């Protein structure tokens, strides 16, 4: 059984202008020790998915269906009290604007100690501090800096402190939502390497969420591609990059510039992502798809395997 299994999760947001169909029947499974990368553009629902798993959605969100099985329990059916135990200890999250997630008036170390004590009341302060020192070493920070305030840390250091905080209660799964987006490449490189090492060392699972397919290519074993609230393709990283089935995945790969290899022509995906207040009928990508036919407009393609472990939702798959 998978460690975390998301099954047919549908989430809508109620807004003044109408119902935003943010997630539509998203399903995937995550094994222990696996690194899953979710790529997609802004507004495709990747952050909503993470918040749904954490049950931290805004008040106007409605979960219309689906299950999230974590170690055999359905998180969506769990009472809030029980869910609080799962957060941090079972699944923790590194937020997008994590650099600002630290409270400026408390010492960095104390904030992590606080987080540990809240979730594990049996731990003493001394033990918690020892654990924080260990975590600091783990993420590559000097434990001596535990008693510094956030403003004394650089952006990269703060990001690492936040990762240390996410690791504090030895979670089984970490959701890393754009963990390095605001950082420069050299620091990004360091943090991604460290996260990858920690994952292997502690045999954790990580879900990386990013718009940067190059980052995902480097850190993920499995890649899920999201478009307009739907998971359109999922499979082993190499298969996704070598033989993308969905035209959107293909376009994304072609549009991404690289500093390595020969300089090839960049592809353009015409049009704009749809408004989820009123998503297109059938396949949500069909208005931008060069291979779209009448069937794509009328019928919604199911997510089906084309190879072992490589699924795509397309009527006219590429490289299949």
């Amino acid at each position, binding site marked *: 059984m998978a460690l975390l299994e998301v099954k047919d999760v549908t989430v809508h*947001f*109620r*807004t*003044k202008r109408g119902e935003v169909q943010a997630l539509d029947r998203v399903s995937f499974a995550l094994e222990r020790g696996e690194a899953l990368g979710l790529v997609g553009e802004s507004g495709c629902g990747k952050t909503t998915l993470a918040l749904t798993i954490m049950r931290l959605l*805004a*008040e*106007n969100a409605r979960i219309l269906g689906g299950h999230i099985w974590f170690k055999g329990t359905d998180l969506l059916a769990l009472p809030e009290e029980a869910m609080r135990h799962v957060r941090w200890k079972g699944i923790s999250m590194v937020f997008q604007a994590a650099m600002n997630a630290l409270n400026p008036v408390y010492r960095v170390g104390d904030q992590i100690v606080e987080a540990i004590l809240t979730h594990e009341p049996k731990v003493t302060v001394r033990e918690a501090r020892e654990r924080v020192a260990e975590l600091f070493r783990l993420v590559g920070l000097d434990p001596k800096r535990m008693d510094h305030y956030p403003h004394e840390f650089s952006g990269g250091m703060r990001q690492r402190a936040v990762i240390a905080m996410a690791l504090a209660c030895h979670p089984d799964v970490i959701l890393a939502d754009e963990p390095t987006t605001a950082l420069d490449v050299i620091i990004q490189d360091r943090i991604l390497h460290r996260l990858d090492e920690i994952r292997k060392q502690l045999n954790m699972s990580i879900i990386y969420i990013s718009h940067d397919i190059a980052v995902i290519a480097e850190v993920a074993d499995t890649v899920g591609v999201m478009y307009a609230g739907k998971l359109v393709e999922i499979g082993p990283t190499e298969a996704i990059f070598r033989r993308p089935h969905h035209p959107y995945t293909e376009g994304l790969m072609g549009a991404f510039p690289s500093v390595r290899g020969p300089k090839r022509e960049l592809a353009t995906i015409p049009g704009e992502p749809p408004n989820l207040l009123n998503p297109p009928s059938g396949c949500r990508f069909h208005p931008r798809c060069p291979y779209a036919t009448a069937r794509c407009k009328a019928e919604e393609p199911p997510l089906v395997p084309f190879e072992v472990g490589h699924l795509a939702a397309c009527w006219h798959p590429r490289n299949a």
Partner: protein
Amino acid sequence: MAVPAPPLKKPPKGRHLEAPWRARLRLLRRGLAGSWGMFWESRIGPLGLFIIAFYGLLALAHPILMATVWADERDVYDPKHGYDPQIIYGGFDGRLQSTVAPGSDDYYVDANGDGRPDYIYAGWDGVLQSKAVGDDKYRGGPAPPSLRHWLGTDPWGRDVFSQLAFSARAEFFLGVMAALITVVIGTLVAAISAYYGGFVDTFFMRLADVVLLFPVIAFLIVLGSMFQLNLYSLAVVLGVINGFGGITIVLKSQALSIKVRPFVEAAKVAGGSHMHIIVRHIIPNLLPLSFLYMMFNVTSAIFSEAVLSFFGILNIDMSWGIMVQMANIAGYLQGGAITKAWWIFFPASISITLLCAAFYFVGRGLDEIVNPRLRKV
């Protein structure tokens, strides 16, 4: 070889573009409609607007009533000089004089001007009562509400409702006028000091500090005793003082955040002058907040007027503040008197509170439009 200004073509026939002024009108209408929807949903805003409308109608009603219903009895219903002979309370004929008798707390009134007391006012025992000399029977002073006088009469026999309606106009004028002056000054000063910074900024900000710490009411009391402050001059004085005060600090901090936004830099790169940037970029983005503060300033102006009138230092014939002052000097605020002749004090004081609150409510309603963070999703 030189870069010519790009020659702009004359519009060819066949291509029809919407005229800019027409499009702007359309956008304005749409914008107002959208804002109105949000304002309506704030609940508190429409409530304020409703109260304001009520007092607006009251203010409008006064001249109409004077011209129609009260036309035959203008002397009775005149808010300042009215007096109803049908109600007996000792006959105030406008020549009210009083002297204190030796060894007595009582007031004597010489009604017919013969130098001898005609009525005696028994001291301040609560409700002011009077009796004719030689008459043992004291009669009630101010008349309670009746069909003839909806809100009764004041100690001088004037119709309270007429006073209330008459004053409403003055309150509106004062409040809106003062707030308008405040906001115009505040917005300009804020935009200019935020944009230019340096000495200009330091000067206006220190001035704002001074004004903010300044005991404005005490200053106005002194000013009121030195000069004859009427409604107009009070509006200007209040407007100017508030304009250089706290509002500049609030608006300036907003203007500073606008100034550093890239569209201001973009306008500079396009060759926009300082004036262009202030007028086209900073002020339009400041206006919603200014408008919001204008509402709060109406409240503050009306309130200041009430306080100053209460101290009796304004050269104003009639206002809600004066009405409260009348109740006070006639002795109806002391002791348990408020409940005995409630109609003298409450209509005016409640009106001050309600109208002040109403503008504040409107401000709060606008707040939700101006500050999207407060908006419910």
